[in-house]
């Protein structure tokens, strides 16, 4: 047994006192990440946890790893620099709906486009919590907040379809309190080479309590959530009697198994590895059921791999091997 395998989630707890509000969804996410890190075959010193600004971005202080709490919106760019500089690190970006999708929107789409090998935990509570309750880019249309007293007049982003539309090679969704499911997804993210986006539907108990309760309530969740697994039929419901099929217009449709001659065999099998993003995009956009689990996971060369491959290729035949070579390269002349 290696030393690493004996670690538990407690080994990833830092000395800093956790200062999120009692009942905050972040606390469960922290537990899941600490648990997952302990399970990963990565030495503790090789984790770098990078965050922006917001409630979620306090996360690095609570992890006993290398951590960097940066500035609003820029975690994606800073994490891109960390990973590109040292690909040997396991880089985790902690961000929120405001940090990643409003002020950091540009960096978010470009780290996806480049397929930077960072693992992004996007805490989505559909509100600005740290500034005490203004609407965010994922707040619902018409939502009343401190800066939208009469309701917002803006359509929200769906982080899933935004990510997949920008070319994400990995997108998963989970709910803050589902620690066990989330640990599984975190382990898959670590294995994925390239960008992994994990949208965690997080409940802000103070400023947007119950934002996700329509599909997280104990009574209804089985009928309003679908946890997808690659290679398995997309079946859900209290009685496992609902599933997804494609309608005549190739749109996803919910059907009841046993009605209108529909059997389990008619239900679509989830293919997370399909290179075409079309169905993944639709799954991410689905309002009911809300799709959880790994929606998309495809292979593509990651940014740092391409960068260092190019450097190696150039160096193989380069004339300049050192600064002195460069300084005396090209046209020079001697004065005697």
């Amino acid at each position, binding site marked *: 047994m290696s030393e690493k395998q004996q670690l538990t989630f407690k080994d990833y707890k830092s000395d800093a006192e956790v200062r999120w509000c009692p009942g905050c969804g972040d606390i469960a996410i922290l537990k899941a990440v600490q648990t997952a890190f302990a399970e990963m075959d990565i030495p503790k010193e090789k984790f770098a946890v990078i965050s922006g600004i917001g409630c979620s971005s306090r996360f690095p202080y609570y992890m006993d790893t290398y951590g*960097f709490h940066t500035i609003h919106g820029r975690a994606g760019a800073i994490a891109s620099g960390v990973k590109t500089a040292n690909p040997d690190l396991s880089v985790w970006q902690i961000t929120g709906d405001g940090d990643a999708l409003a002020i950091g929107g540009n960096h978010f789409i470009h780290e996806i486009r480049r397929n930077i090998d960072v693992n992004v935990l996007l805490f989505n509570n559909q509100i600005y919590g740290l500034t005490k309750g203004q609407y965010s880019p994922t707040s619902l249309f018409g939502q009343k907040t401190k800066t939208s007293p009469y309701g917002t007049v803006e359509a929200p982003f769906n982080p899933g379809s935004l990510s997949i539309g920008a070319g994400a090679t990995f997108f998963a969704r989970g709910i803050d309190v589902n620690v066990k499911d989330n640990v599984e997804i975190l382990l898959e993210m670590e294995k994925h080479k390239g960008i992994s986006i994990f949208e965690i539907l997080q409940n802000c108990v103070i400023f947007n309590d119950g934002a996700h309760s329509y599909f997280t309530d104990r009574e209804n969740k089985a009928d309003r959530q679908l946890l997808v697994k690659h290679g398995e039929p997309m079946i859900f419901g209290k009685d496992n009697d609902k599933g997804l099929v494609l309608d005549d217009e190739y749109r996803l449709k919910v059907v009841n198994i046993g009605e209108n001659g529909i059997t389990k065999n008619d239900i679509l099998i989830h293919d997370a590895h399909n290179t075409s993003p079309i169905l993944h995009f639709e799954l991410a956009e689905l309002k009911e059921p809300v799709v959880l689990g790994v929606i998309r996971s495809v292979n593509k060369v990651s940014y740092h791999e391409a960068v260092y491959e190019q450097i190696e290729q150039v160096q193989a035949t380069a004339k300049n091997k050192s600064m002195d070579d460069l300084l005396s390269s*090209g046209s020079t002349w001697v004065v005697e």
Partner: protein
Amino acid sequence: METKKPIIEKEHVVIKFTGDSGDGMQLTGHQFSDTSALMGNEVVTFPDYPAEIRAPKGTIGGVSGFQLNIGKDEVRTPGDFVDVLVAMNPAALKANRQWLKAGGTLIVDIDAFTEKNLNKVECVNPFDNDDLDGVQIIKAPMTKMVQEALVDSGLDNKSILRSRNMVALGIAYWLFQRDLSYTEDYLREKFSKKPEVAQANIDAVKAGYNFGENLQYIRSYKVNRAFITPGTYRNINGNLATAWGLLAAAEKANLPLFLGSYPITPASEILQEISNRKDLGAVSFQAEDEIAGIATSIGASFAGHFACTSTSGPGLALKSEAVNLAIIAELPLVIVDVQRGGPSTGLPTKPEQSDLLQALWGRNGASPIPVIAASTPSDCFEYAFNAGKIAVENMTPVLLLTDGFIANGSQPWKIASMKDLPEIKPRFVKEGKENYFPYERIEGTMVREWAVPGMKNYEHRIGGLEKMAVTGGVSYEPLNHEVMTFERAKKIADIAEQIPEQQVYGKNKGKLLIIGWGGTFGHIYTAYNELLEEGVEVSYTHFNYINPLPKNTEDIFKNFDKILICEMNEGQFLKYLRTEFPQYNYKQYNKIQGYPFTISELKTAIKQNLED
């Protein structure tokens, strides 16, 4: 029949090639400059081009110029007024006529002086009146010549006309008896895949040269070889020298170089050069915006690289929040600002020194940062290197200011040797240290130790929230904030011990001290020298280290009755000096026209201040 041609022998000659921005004047000027340097002249160049890639053809706004000053002794500036002006069309002549010296030489493509082209710039034919009296004029039918010379080249008319600039270069080569072989080699190399184009251009140069050979009554120029310190030389411009200085610092620090940057005029060449340096293992990251440029670099610095970012004024404004992150996180980083005319988009291709106050103070909170300014194209190497050394050894971001004038201008440079450069020692925490605290200061210094991800047992968190002294934990304690504010300030102030003392040209005591900083050195130094020769008593000191200032600065100031600060802005260094040392009698001379000083205007200003 052999005719003996008169020759004008000069110590310095200023030549300016001007034409449409599509006429290839920059390339022509570079060729002339390289050839002159190879033939042993001192050379300083200044490209002056419009912001538009292709402004409307034949208009004043579209005129592109390349000026160079060649000499047999010390040449420090591209010169004020022009001895030889090459004008490819009426617009180029109209825009530059004012700079041509009486008794100078004008070379024009006479085929371009058509009614239509003259009308475009609302100008009567300059050869029909006495406007050019006293000027030696070479009316060369360059268009016809290139068409005739290349009739058998197999190229179409449009491609043939593209070589018109080479005819102009050939005539200029004849005028100065330059050797054509450097340009021939250059053209063969540049067009190695299109030998017919290479040959056509070589033929065009020769056509121009032969045209000159057959001219009568035209005096040609002779500029003798300069006495130059022995060594190996190359031509280098400020941007290239900056990129190489950074690469040299990374190599000395034994750290891989990372440059996160976004293209911006006139700094893009730094990003381009680093992108080309994969042979040395440099990582360039063309970011999605200016903020990501610096943010990726901060990430790379956190991960233990030699990190840098390059930009110009508007980009520095966008980066300012991230500069502060590097300041509070105490991470090494070099930020290069190639200054241009501002505010806003301002004058993107024109030099100015108006980012000084932004560099010093343009951030929220108390955010001290070392500010260094290079003063010539080639010393950008030295100051970029030193910026890197100060950043790495003091765990701080450093701002290096250059400007569009020295960034694009070039001069011969005695190539540095890596073994002669000082060591750079990163502040990595020693292996086996117990109880690492990220904000514990190394004994006798204000510098913290650097533990980077991957180092075992030193896991820690840093960030933009105020840090607890020593431990680096988040702290909102009022007294701690004050302590940390002073710690950050002292760390930067202490750098005065690491930089050279300020030097004075001339006497250490007197009536008037001239002050310059950054890219104006060549002009002020030349003006100072000329005044010295005229018997005018002044002293001169030029600043490269702006924050902290050299520790003997005040000792110099106190020995002069008056201090005249010359800068290409409205008086920013003056404001700074007034803040630091309010008690002295400061005067100012400023120019904010997107053009460098002229030596004559500086001399006038200095004399006036002596008399007043």
